[in-house]
């Protein structure tokens, strides 16, 4: 996907006479746009086919919006990223869709989801934001701002989940949406832990390399 984005960015910027830095900025933005659109199209098609489009979209939006401020583990290539994104969102959509068919689904949801959400909040509070090698976050002000945005996002999600659970007593369709939201937040908090672990391993190897 990166090669395609590079070709497209060249096709856009060469006729406009942009320099290499301006081209890099356009390429970066174009990559984000294409990534967002491709994942949206694939999960929409999957959602329509599997009958869980709303659950997939709740998962897609909640993961993306939370990830923007928390950061998290990254794939090594853009294609790997595409596969992981589509697989995880589709899986969360499917689990959420068929969760409500379980006996005592509402009761189980009411017990498990708040626990998952609470654990996720703790992880986000302790670890967010997690930077990466390619995008280090150095400024203390930015770290504070991203942490605050993460917590505000979680509060909004909590209110939304509460509302969805409240209306689930009348219609179990909303239970699927609440479960989808909770699973997405939990998955995103797990990717934070993975990122922290990967970073610790990389730092340790770097230190070892410096000592030898």
């Amino acid at each position, binding site marked *: 996907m990166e090669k395609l984005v590079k070709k497209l960015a060249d096709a856009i910027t060469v006729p406009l006479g942009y320099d290499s830095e301006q081209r890099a900025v356009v390429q970066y933005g174009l990559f984000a746009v294409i990534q967002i659109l491709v994942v949206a199209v694939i999960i929409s098609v999957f959602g329509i086919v599997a009958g869980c489009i709303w659950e997939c979209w709740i998962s897609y939006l909640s993961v993306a919006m939370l*990830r*923007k401020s928390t950061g998290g583990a990254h794939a090594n290539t853009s294609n790997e990223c595409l596969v992981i994104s589509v697989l995880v969102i589709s899986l969360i959509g499917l689990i959420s869709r068929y969760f409500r068919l379980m006996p005592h689904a509402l009761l189980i949801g009411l017990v498990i989801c708040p626990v998952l959400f609470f654990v996720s909040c703790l992880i986000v509070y302790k670890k967010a934001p997690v930077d990466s090698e390619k995008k280090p976050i150095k400024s203390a002000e930015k770290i504070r701002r991203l942490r605050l945005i993460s917590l505000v996002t979680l509060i909004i999600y909590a209110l939304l989940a509460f509302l969805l659970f409240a209306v689930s007593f009348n219609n179990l369709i909303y239970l699927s949406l609440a479960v989808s939201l909770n699973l997405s937040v939990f998955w995103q908090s797990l990717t934070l832990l993975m990122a922290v672990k990967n970073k610790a391993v990389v730092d340790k190897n770097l230190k070892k390399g410096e000592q030898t």
Partner: protein
Amino acid sequence: MKKYVRPVLAVVAMVCSFVAATMASSACLLFYYQPEEPKSLQD
């Protein structure tokens, strides 16, 4: 038709630059791959 190509490309480039700037202020891109960030967008 040809006279519209440059303005259209300029609008596309502007939208992409805007998205890039928005992503630069966040912790990472929305999904699980982070390409190298352009120097002008770094902290």
